[in-house]
Structures are given as C-alpha cells and as structure tokens.
C-alpha cells in the first residue's frame, strides 16, 4: 500500500498517546502533558515518526474542531458580557508581556533581534491547552472560563496584527506599508463580516435549515462540520486565524436545540484529533542542547508562570470582578502557545535567530504548559492557598463577588433540582404517556429524546440527547435518579441503558417491545420490564368483552 506510512504514523502516534495517557493516570498527570511527552519520545528522542502533511493537517483540524466545540458551548449572550474585560486584559497583557519579556531578554544578554522574537513568542498563550483543560473541568462557561476564552480571541487578533506588521517591517519599503495597512484592515473587516454572518444566520437561517436536516443526526453532524469549515476557510481567506472562524461557526450554532447533541458528537472527534495534535507538537519540539540554555529557560518560564498571571490579576481585579474570578482567569494565561514554536521556527528559517533561541522557546513552552496545566486543574485549591497572601489582598474584592456567587448558586440549584427524579427516555406514545402519568403523581420527571420536536410535545423537563452517550446520562443526573425508564424501541440502546443503570445502582424499567429482547434485558439485570405487547393483548381481551362484541 502506498499510504501505509500514514496509517503507521497514525498508529504509532495513537498507541503511544494511549500508552502514555494510561501510564499517567495513576499520577494524575493531565492528558495533554502525557501526549506531549509521548510526542517527545517519538520525535526528538527516538525519531520514529516524521510529520507528514496529512498529519499536519490533522493537527490543524484538531484545533479547528476544538474551537468549534468551544463556540458550541457558549452563545452570543454568554460572550457579550465579557467583551470589555477581555479586550482590556488581552491588550494589557500583550503590551506588558512583550515589554517585560524584551527587557528581560536584554538583561539576559540576548541581542535585540533575539529579544524581539523571544518577547513576541512569550505573549501568545495557548488557547488549545486552556480550552482543553477547562472543558475537562466543565468550567468553560463559568464566568472566568468565558473571560479566558474572550482573552484568547483578543490575543488571536493582536497576533494577526503583529504578524502583519512584522512581515511589513521585514522589507520596510513604502509599498509594503500599504499592504501592511491593507492586511490589518482586511483582518478587522473580515472579523466584522464573519461576526455579522454568524449573528444573522443564527437568527434567520440556521434554525430552519438545520431543523430540516436534523431528522438524520448523521446528516446534521456533517452539515454542522461543513458550516464550521466554511467559516474556517472564510477566516483564512481574510487573513484571520482558523480558530476565530471555527469559534464563530460554533457560536452561531450554539442556540440551536440540537447543539447539545452536536457537542456530544463533535467531542469524540476533538478528542481524537487533539491527541494527534499534542503528540505531533511533542514530535516537533527541538530540545537539542537544552542544557546550554537552562538558565534563561528557567527565568523566562518563571516570568510567564508568575508575571503573566500577576498582570492579569491586577487588570481584572481592578475592573471589579473580585479576587477569585481575577485569580482563576489569571492562572489560565500562564503558558506560551504552540504558535510560539511556529513563530520561532519561522524566525529560524528566515535566519533572524539562531537554533538556540528555538530551543529556548521550546523549553519555556514545555515547562509553562506542563506547570500551568497543573495550575489550571487545581486552580480552586491554589486560590484557597494564596488567598491569604498580601498581593491578593491588594485587589479590591467585590462584596462576595456577585457574578461568581450567582453562578455557583445556579449550579447548586441545578444539582438540587435533579435529585430523586425519574428519567424517561424516548418520547414516543409510551414515553409521553408515562411522563404524563408521573407528573400527575407529582414526581419530578426528566424527559429525554434525541428529537427536540418530540420533546416539545411533553410537559416534563426536557433534555435533548442520545442515551448511548454516558455524558447525556450524567447531565440527566442518573447517579441521583430514583428510576430510569426507557420507552425506546431500539434494542442496543435499551440494553446499554440497562447495563449503565446497573453500574450506577439505579433501578430501571425498560420497554420490552418484543419477545426477542426480553431474555437479554433480564440477563443484564433490568429491574422491571414493560411488556407492551402482552399489556396490549390484555386490553384487547377486555375490549372484546366490554364492548359486547364478544363474550
């Protein structure tokens, strides 16, 4: 096979990722670190995998899908509120880090050109790392998560402007100043156009169109991905990053009734591509001669790990978000980005910096990503730890930080609401009737179906989703449920549901819609079977008797 190398590369990458991720599990190492280390082992250490073009593309795909997913989790309403703080903090941070980094570089004895590159590389924070971790923590749509996402988008824009300017400065002729200005105008114009398209289509177009296709969830999925790539291509055409395009595409689909189901479908795809992305990142890393630059490596890493959060703490703190939110947001920016590597590699290619600078940036990236991953994962614990410190005390605290307070109350209310409830799966005639009956008895009932239209016809609290996904059951609060009922006429789904109910220790009543499915359900341990056909026959008998037609 001519393409066997691709399969092999994929295979090696995924097997290595799996092995390292499993090894990292008992140590509670974040999966991204395991992936990067796997990549380091494959590339720089053993040199097993060469990164092909398709592999490169796969990584990009991972970023696009991840940001698409982030967009799907948020909505215009949720992002709108944090626009100002994101803009101020994002810009402030870029200026501070660039200036501080440049000064530090000069003190460390780097040349001005090297200093410029290192300083620029330090200003980028890694959207992918942070979004991935926040997603794992399920805190993407918390206030600080939203601010962080906003900051990353602002940084993205700044980076684009920066690169355009840098490309213009590289040649310095007058005509290039023109293209430079044109480039910046194009980027901002493009942003405005994309935003407008996203907003307008969300309002007028998508509900109808995606509603039509949503009869087949597979088709809906492919259409949504196409929508995502449409934006990605448009963004690239206008000189914007693919992240921005994918994010806007996601956010325009976020308020569709199927966005929940879409998210669940995109999620595994993201997991797949992101694993490849991080391993590839590790493979790319240039760590030759890292010991020679150990000292500046430590200094710059500390600068990013401590300096960056500090400046954020101040900016956000003084914008009135309170200590906790300011702290949690700040922690998210304590790393440099995969883009920093690309940027440095570009500089190396252009002969502007030496290979030692690329190694330096790589080392700083590796250290900051690893450390900040822990900082983000344990951000609440970290906050409890530093709360007493004097620096934190300097920040004016909003009295019990209202935004944050309401958010937590919301969460708690949500949890309390879903306790001791009955989950009814499948809104066919049987499911609808059961929901109705349960509600008449005053039982809290959660109605679950993949079809939002069907859910609209029942009174229970609705949840759109496919029960095959564990995450759907989790958001239905299965562990705290009193009973799970399935009216579905899908054998596989019912079996799996019964199995999961047993692992959760929750009783379940399953629709045994055919004699053929009964034995399996009994074996799996369903608590109760609704034998609808037998029940129907009994009613037939009654009807024959009571209507005087017979008997």
């Amino acid at each position, binding site marked *: 096979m001519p393409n066997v190398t691709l399969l092999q590369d*994929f295979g090696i990458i995924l097997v290595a990722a799996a092995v390292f991720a*499993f090894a990292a599990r008992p140590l509670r190492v974040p999966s991204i670190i395991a992936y990067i280390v796997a990549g380091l082992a494959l590339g720089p250490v053993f040199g097993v995998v060469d990164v092909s073009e398709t592999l490169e593309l796969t990584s990009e795909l991972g970023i696009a899908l991840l940001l698409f997913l982030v967009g799907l989790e948020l909505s215009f309403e949720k992002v709108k509120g944090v626009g100002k703080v994101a803009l101020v903090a994002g810009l402030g941070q870029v200026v501070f880090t660039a200036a501080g980094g440049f000064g530090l570089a000069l003190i460390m004895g780097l040349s001005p050109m090297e200093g410029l590159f290192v300083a620029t590389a330090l200003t980028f924070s890694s959207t992918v790392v942070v979004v991935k971790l926040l997603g794992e923590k399920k805190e993407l749509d918390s206030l600080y998560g939203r601010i962080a996402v906003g900051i990353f988008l602002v940084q993205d824009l700044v980076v684009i402007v920066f690169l355009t300017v840098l490309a213009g400065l590289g040649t310095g002729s007058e005509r290039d100043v023109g293209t430079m200005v044109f480039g910046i105008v194009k980027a901002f114009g493009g942003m405005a156009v994309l935003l407008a398209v996203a907003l307008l289509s969300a309002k007028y177009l998508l509900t109808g169109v995606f509603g039509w296709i949503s009869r087949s969830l597979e*088709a809906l999925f492919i*259409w949504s991905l196409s929508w995502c790539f449409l934006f990605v291509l448009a963004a690239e055409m206008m000189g914007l990053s693919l992240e921005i395009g994918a994010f806007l595409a996601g956010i325009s689909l976020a308020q569709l009734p199927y966005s929940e189901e879409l998210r669940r479908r995109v*999620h595994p795809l993201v997991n797949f591509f992101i694993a490849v992305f991080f391993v590839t990142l590790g493979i790319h890393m240039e760590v030759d001669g890292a010991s020679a630059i150990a000292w500046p490596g430590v200094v710059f890493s500390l600068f990013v790990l401590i300096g960056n959060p500090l400046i954020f703490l101040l900016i956000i703190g003084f914008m009135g978000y309170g200590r906790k939110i300011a702290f949690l947001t700040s922690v998210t920016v304590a790393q440099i980005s995969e883009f920093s590597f690309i940027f440095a590699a570009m500089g190396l290619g252009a002969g502007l910096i030496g290979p030692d600078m690329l190694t330096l940036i790589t080392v700083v990236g590796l250290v900051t990503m690893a450390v900040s991953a822990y900082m983000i994962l344990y951000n609440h614990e970290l906050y409890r730890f530093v709360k007493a410190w004097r620096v934190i005390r300097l920040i004016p605290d909003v009295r019990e930080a209202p935004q944050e307070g309401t958010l937590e109350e919301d969460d708690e209310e949500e949890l309390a609401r879903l306790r001791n409830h009955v989950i009814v799966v499948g809104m066919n005639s*049987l499911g609808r*009737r059961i929901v109705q009956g349960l509600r008449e008895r005053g039982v809290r009932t959660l109605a679950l179906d993949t079809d939002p239209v069907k859910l609209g016809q029942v009174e229970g609290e609705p949840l759109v989703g496919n029960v095959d996904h564990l*995450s759907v059951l989790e958001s239905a609060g299965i562990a705290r449920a009193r*009973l799970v009922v399935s009216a579905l006429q899908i054998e596989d789904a019912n079996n799996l549901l019964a*199995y999961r109910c047993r692992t959760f220790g929750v009783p379940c009543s399953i629709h045994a819609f055919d004699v053929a499915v009964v034995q399996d359900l009994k074996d799996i341990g369903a608590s109760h079977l609704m034998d609808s056909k037998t029940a129907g026959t009994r009613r037939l008998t009654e009807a024959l008797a009571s209507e005087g037609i017979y008997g």
Partner: protein
Amino acid sequence: MTDIAVLLFAAAVGFGVARWSGLPVIPFLLLAGFGLSFVPVVESEFLQDALVLGITFLVFVAGIELNPRRVRRQTRAALAVGLIQFLALGILGFGAARLLGMEVHTAIYVALALTASSTLVVVRILQERRQMFESFGRLVIGVLLLQDLAVILLIPMVTRLPDGAGAVLEGVAATAALTVVAYVLLRWVLPGLLKRISLDEELLLLAVLALLFSFLFLSDLLGIPSIAGAFLAGLALSSFPVNGVVRGQLMSVSDFFTAIFFTALGAQLGIPSGAQLAQAFVLAAVVVVVTPPLVALVAERFDFSARPAIFSGLLLAQTSEFSLVVGLQGVVLEQLAPGTFAVIALVTLVTMTITPFLSRDRLSLWLMRFHPSARSRDSEEDPPRDHVLLLGCGVTGMPLLETLVIGPYRVVAVDDDPQVVQRVRDAGVEAIRGDAADAELLHRAGADRARVVVSTVRRVEDNGPLLEMAGGVPVLVRVFNVEDAEWVEARGGQAVLYSDAAAEGFLEWFDRAGWVRPDELEDEEREQVL
C-alpha cells in the same frame, strides 16, 4: 484544510440530496465526490490518505456491529441463505465477468464484490420500517453479517492468488491466527477489563483506537491486508456491553471518516467509458435479477411464508460498501485496473439507489402473484363465517387465544410463522399460515364474514387490506403509536393502543412499588422495594 473542507461540503450536499429524496446516502456521496473530480481542487495525495483512513474506520465499525446475537433463532436460515446467495452470486458474477472479457483474477475480484449486500443500506430500511425484529428481519441481518465476514476474510486470500497456493494458505493461516487473537479478546479479556477499570471518554476512545492500530500492525506483520486487521479489531469489541460503550464514542469519528471516504472515492472514479457502463449494467442486472428469487426460494425452504421471503430477496438485491472495499483493495495492490474498480462502484451506486424502490410494499405484493402458492391454493373449502378471526398470533397473542377458545364461537388464527401455526394447531385451534396483508388469504380466512376480527400484526400498514375488506365486520387492531391509532380509526377500525396499556402497567408497578412518596423512602427501603 481546503481539501478536507471541500470533501466535507460535497458530503454535505450528498446528505442534503439524500434527505430530500429519501434515498440511501451512499450513492449520493459517491456522486457528490464524482462531481468534485470535474473541479480538481482536491490534491490526489490527500484523497489517498482520506480513502485509507476512511476505509479503516468503515470496516472497523462494521466489525463492532457484528454481533451474532442479533440473528438468534434465524441462525440456521441465515447461514443457508447467506452461503447460497454468496456462492451463487460469486459463481454467476465470475461467469458474467469472464463473459464480459475480464481476466481470471479480475473476475474473481468482481465476483467477490458482487457477493455481499449492503449492511448500511438494508439496516436503515429495516429500522425505518420497524422490521428489525420480525423473523425475516433477523434473517436478513444474519445474511448481511455473514457476508461481511466472508468478504473480509476472503480478501487476504484473493489478494494472494497471484503468488500461488502456498501464499494463499499462508494468508488463511495468518487470518485465522489474527481471528483467534480477536476472539480471545472478545470472550475473555475486554469484557472483564471494562468491568474492572472505568475510563473517561477520552481515554476510552484512545484505548479503542490503540487497539485498532495494534491490529493493523499485527496484520501488517502477518502480511494480510490492513482492512482484515481493522475488521477483526472491531470484532474483538463486538460483545455486549463493550460494543455499546464503544459505539457512543466512536460513532461520530466513524461518521466523519465514512462520509469523507465515500466522497473521496467518488472523486477518484473518473468518467466511465461506454464499455464500463455496459459492463456495470450487466453486472447490476445479475445482482438485481438473481438475488430476489434465489433468496426467496431458500427462505421458503426454511418455512418463511411467501411475502417475507420475497421481501428479504428484494432487500438484499444490491452490492455492498464492502464491494467498494474489495475493489479498492485490488486497486491499491495494483491487481485491479482502476477501470474495473469504476465498474464495481457503478454497480454499487445503481443497485443501492434502486433498493428503496425494490423494497416498496407494492412490488412485493405484485410479485406474490407469480408465486406458486398464489395459484396452487385451492379455494374449494368454504371460507369460515361468523367466527372470530385472530391475525398475528405470536407469543403475546397466545393468552388472547386462550380466552377466545373458551368462548362460544369458532376461532381461526392466522400467522406467518410456521412454528406459531404449529403450536396453535397443537392446541386444537384452527390456524392458517400466511400473510395477514394478503387479500387472497384474508378472503380465505373469511375476514369479510367474521363476527369480529382481531389484529396484532406488527406493522400498522399491513392492516390496510383487512380494513378495506372488512365492511361491517368490527375490526380491533393493536397499535403502538397514537398516530397509528388515528390511521386505523380513519379507516373504520377500532384501535387498541398498547403503548397506553403498557404505560398503565408501568404506573401500576410504580405505585405498587411504593414510589408515590419517594422522598420519604430511605435508600435501604428503596432497595427492599425492588
């Protein structure tokens, strides 16, 4: 990025047209991809990569779905029908290909491609018609699974044919070895592993993919095609509950890659020549003409009544996504000319597209007329009158039958399952084997002169002929959906909603279990209640 985006757009168009027309999506994905070949925007190297990844996931997922439990009671019939269809189409396909002037090895590829029917297409139709659980549905699924298995396991042998018998035997041994590995994992390793360690979704997906790629390595090591490895990797995951847990995570990944796969495949086809079109036409005709009577005949041997047997035949009359896999494998190994592959793809495209038309009820009813049973049946015996007629008498119909026979009237039962009919007769009740949607049979059973007709047939549409014929006879129909009830009542029948009955049964259980005031129940009590 443009490449993949363009492929996705084409796939989106394919899905859109399929949704609009209500036809299977695969032909439209191929066509959309084919359309792309006129605008050469996609690099061919990327297409190759997309094909390789796509085919791997397609076959992998097919392996996961290969659960023999889905066939159950129909295993013997499925084995017979599957093998006979496989052999007959293989031989006929080989003959036809030779007659069309193909070389021996090419003809073997083509024959293998013709033997399989499409799981993706047929399962979707069965699901839409809610016939997965009828005995013929099980039969059809069994046949499909068997064919998938046979095709995939034969590929390693066919690819080695040019190297002589020794190489083929090696291929057999290597495939058998890998199958054993898969079986050990399936039976003893993976289910236990799943119970012992709980993985989050990310790790689970990674573990599954790592398993897949390990099998690909192994197959590479053993010198068999990687698709056989991918299929066997899927097989290793096909036991419950492993398959269910995996499916949720893998579904979208495989949806993505399969969509890309079919589109990329279409993009590589090129414009077929006249000769290729002619060849494709002949081969498609072989599939469409031979399959239905063949399957129907064998199915009837296994006591299926005429209509389900004919319908099974019509359902299976298409080539499979695995035909494309076979062809692609040949092209990749340079054992098959791209032109021949185009022929296979055309056959698949055509036969898949007409399957929904073949599976219309009207066609199978019309074909029934040519069925020997339609003429040989003598109507010398007078149809019963003033009796109670029970249509559909499966396990759940039996209690009803017991009640009916106690009553004062003559009882006649109709069912299409020979075993059920035998059981009814053993109980001393008159029974007719046949299809409740067949007007001729209804007449024979005296549906128009009965005292009352009770129908428990599975599909509400099958009551159409009965309701049309019944006239003044009261007809009670057991239906599940409220919409079906309306359908029946609009045609003068009396619907008995069994979803409602089941819901009441559930609520009774719910009340009896003491769940009315559950807030006061402690956890222990809850357990006691159950």
